[in-house]
């Protein structure tokens, strides 16, 4: 096809589109929706960043308070005037009160594009020696009803709304010619109808995609700054979103090539959108839940509690008796808390925790193992649903995918073990149980916060190429059918 003809087609398309009132109103609505989605994403990011600043302030205040109190006790011959359970020179008390530090997942700036799992997974944990974080925390204080409704972010707009807009843009490229009576004119032209149709669809795709990025990029520059736009993640986001739009345009071309009425074209495309965007993910959900059912966390609780009951039948029973009946700790033990009792409680807590951690390890592995299997299932089957594939990609590239939160959760668990290793020796030995010093306070382990934006597990090239192949196939099939279009 010659360049001048492409030029004519380009101007023709611009004229047609700009004179279509429905399209113009939809485009205005889309600008509003897109800007709103980006603004909502960035306000969530800002809120997380502010919370993280507050967390570090809170940690600093706790440490300062701890050190001040220890200094005061040391200056008064180790006498603590307040309640014994608040005395920070007991390692066990510090581990419960000012000691616990936070594990934080720093938000990746591109998270403004896809909230992903950020609203249902915690991005920070207060890490205690005796509380497994997954049994304690779930997420920020969020309204369950709003979580249920879902987020309004860039990913939602791209995945759900844009395909429908593309359908409105492209469902009648060929059928409108027939319905308006210009088809006969086209047939008499010495140009290839198939090439012209592909060219028109290509022009619409370019106009649509350029318009889209022309809105998104400046808004992102304003809301999150330019740095995030020079990352590999951003490059991939641009490539994936453009590919997703290309898929819908290619599909519209194929549907058009069947020479049905505009109304039927629109219905078929809406049906495909509904089927691939809602029904297939739901069917996959049913299937994966059947094949890899995710056990309830209640199972972990049951395992933990069974183990504790078993422990208290013998060893725990002896230890408790030793603590609560020892002459050292017992001066009317249910009236006055003695230092020996605080120490003993600490020992019971840490011994029990060791038992609990061992007991829950199996149930925990079963839970996360099943989720991992489901995730792997999604990775393999996501090609069935472009919407699902897009969601998985966007959340991974934005650093808000389940994998990345799981990575954070595992790092938090490692940090918890490190914290336990720090406190346990100080709690467990009678010679050290009331010697927690300022040096110890300074040595309390701290979590190394990062943003978890790596996506190497995604095998992104592989599925990108497969999807590109599918789009080419759709285009070739549409083109071949158009070559035969004579009616």
């Amino acid at each position, binding site marked *: 096809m010659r360049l001048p003809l492409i030029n004519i087609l380009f101007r023709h398309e611009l004229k047609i589109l700009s004179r279509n009132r429905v399209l113009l109103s939809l485009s205005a609505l889309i600008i509003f929706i897109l800007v709103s989605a980006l603004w909502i994403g960035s306000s969530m990011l800002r809120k997380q960043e502010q919370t993280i600043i507050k967390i570090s302030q809170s940690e600093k205040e706790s440490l300062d308070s701890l050190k001040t109190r220890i200094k005061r006790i040391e200056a008064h011959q180790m006498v603590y005037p307040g309640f014994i359970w608040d005395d920070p020179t007991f390692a066990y008390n510090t581990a419960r009160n000012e000691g616990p530090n936070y594990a934080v997942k720093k938000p990746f700036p591109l998270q403004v594009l896809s909230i992903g799992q950020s609203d249902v997974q915690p991005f920070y944990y207060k890490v205690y020696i005796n509380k497994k974080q997954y049994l304690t925390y779930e997420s920020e204080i969020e309204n369950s009803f*709003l979580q249920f409704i879902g987020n309004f972010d860039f990913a939602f707009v791209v995945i759900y709304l844009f395909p429908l807009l593309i359908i409105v843009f492209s469902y009648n490229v060929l059928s409108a010619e027939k319905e308006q009576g210009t088809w006969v004119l086209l047939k008499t032209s010495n140009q290839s109808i198939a090439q012209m149709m592909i060219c028109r669809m290509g022009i619409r795709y370019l106009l649509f995609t350029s318009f889209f990025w022309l809105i998104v990029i400046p808004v992102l520059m304003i809301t999150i700054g330019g740095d995030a736009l020079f990352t590999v993640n951003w490059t991939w986001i641009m490539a994936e979103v453009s590919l997703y739009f290309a898929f819908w345009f290619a599909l519209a071309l194929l549907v058009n090539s069947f020479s049905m009425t505009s109304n039927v074209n629109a219905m078929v495309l*809406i049906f495909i959108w509904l089927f691939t965007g809602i029904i297939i993910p739901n069917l996959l959900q049913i299937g994966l839940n059947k094949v890899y059912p995710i056990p309830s966390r209640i199972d972990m609780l049951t395992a933990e509690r069974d183990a504790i009951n078993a422990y208290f039948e013998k060893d725990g029973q002896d230890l408790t008796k030793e603590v609560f009946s020892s002459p050292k700790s017992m001066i009317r033990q249910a009236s006055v808390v003695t230092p020996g009792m605080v120490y003993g409680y600490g020992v019971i807590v840490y011994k029990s925790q060791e038992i609990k951690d061992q007991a829950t390890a199996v149930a925990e592995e079963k839970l996360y193992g099943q989720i991992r299997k489901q995730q792997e299932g999604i990775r393999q089957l996501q090609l069935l649903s472009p919407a699902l594939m897009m969601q998985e990609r966007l959340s991974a590239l934005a650093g808000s995918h389940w994998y990345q939160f799981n990575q954070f959760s595992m790092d938090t668990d490692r940090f918890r073990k490190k914290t336990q290793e720090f406190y346990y020796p100080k709690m467990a030995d009678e010679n050290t149980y009331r010697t927690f010093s300022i040096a110890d306070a300074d040595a309390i382990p701290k979590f190394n916060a990062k943003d978890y934006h790596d996506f190497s597990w995604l095998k992104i090239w592989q599925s990108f190429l497969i999807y590109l192949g599918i789009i080419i196939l759709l285009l070739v099939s549409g083109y071949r059918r158009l070559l035969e279009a004579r009616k």
Partner: protein
Amino acid sequence: MTGLILKKELKELFRTSKVMWMLGGIIVLMALALYNGTSYYQTHSHLIRESQQVTYQQFISQGDKNPHLGAHFGFYAYKPTADMAMIENGIEDYTGNSFYLEPHKRGVVRFKEISDATGLRSFGFLNIGFFTEFILPLFIFLICHNIFSKEWENGTIKMLLSSKANPRQIFMGKLFACLSLVMGIVVLIAAASFILFISETETVGFISRVLPAYACYLAGLILFSTMMTTIGVSVSLLTRTANLSLIILSGFWLIGVFLLPRLAGELSKNIHPSTTSLEFENNTFNEKQYGVGDEGHKDVRREALLQRTMAQYQVKRIEDLPVFFIPITIEFFEDSDGQVMDRAYQAVDDNEAKQDRLVLNSAWLTPFLAFRDFSMRITATDMKTHNDFASKAEAHRRKIGVIVDDFYQKNTVAGNAFWKTVPQFSYTAPGIGWRISNATDSIFILLGWTVFATGLMVYAYRKMTV
């Protein structure tokens, strides 16, 4: 005359292959929704019932322990799966179902299933609720969008208008034809769900409990489906072209089902921002430790309590008290800390109620949201029912605290004989009267939409001219 038009339209609909394909697809989806919902209900209700027994059994067989230590072992109050979760599970997976009953720690409902779900969950959960709120309206619009416009496009409108039938009869004939198809699906849903309900034999008194709520749910579904069909047929008449009608109706669906609720949700988060866990924890800790107003530090309050207790028993030393002081302290702070936590949780609940109200108000712009809200409230899978569970579980937790502390004042070791005196927890969702009053707002909005649909219908058939 209306009957004749109805018969003709039905014949035409059944002879249209795309309608038959759609009907086939919708029935398959409905069957899947029923299967998925039933399977969800069976798995969850069984697990919860069993776990409630297991956790209590673990508690009452924990053996000899210091009463306070044993009370800390505690047990869980599990929220039973809603009776109607087979057809609508609402926000059940987003609220959690486990409430830890242990001393001096205000319980929080934990274990939101959504935390362990994959990204697939964001596409919804296919059950009858999802089917009727998301898929059925789109099906209705696809059926109705060209019911009138085809007459203009085929040029048969003149023939129709020159017949003996008046515009109202023509409109009613076409509306009833579409309604017959839609009501056919509603009847299928009703019959299939009813069979599933009567086949649930594990729960005592299940069917008598479910029936009133189920009847209300069906009434709401019939109203909603009729309203959607009326809107679909009216738009088809007003637009006169199938394409425009399809774009308007599917746009209305998309905006109503996905866009507006989410946008309203985000707006409510920004207008009524939630407190963070960090702030919540720090504030409640400070209030408990340093007191509210002129209450004073915890140490001061503890000392005052000791002086009061010694004065009460007319002794001068703690060691001379005829009762143990630690349980008295625990009970005292359970009460004052409880007030701090009640205030804090009430503030969270109040803020969430404001957010929910804002979202529900947006249902004046989208009937889909109003029906979803109605459906959740009637099936007791909404936030208010969840809060009712949480408050009853918290009351039970405090009751256990009093029992244990009273025992602890005179005993230092508790055995299984004592643990068995602690009552088990059980919860039943409030009855249909409470649910209807809880759903008043959404019922009112649905009625408002019904008035709108009727008005649109009258306006549309008055415009039926060539």
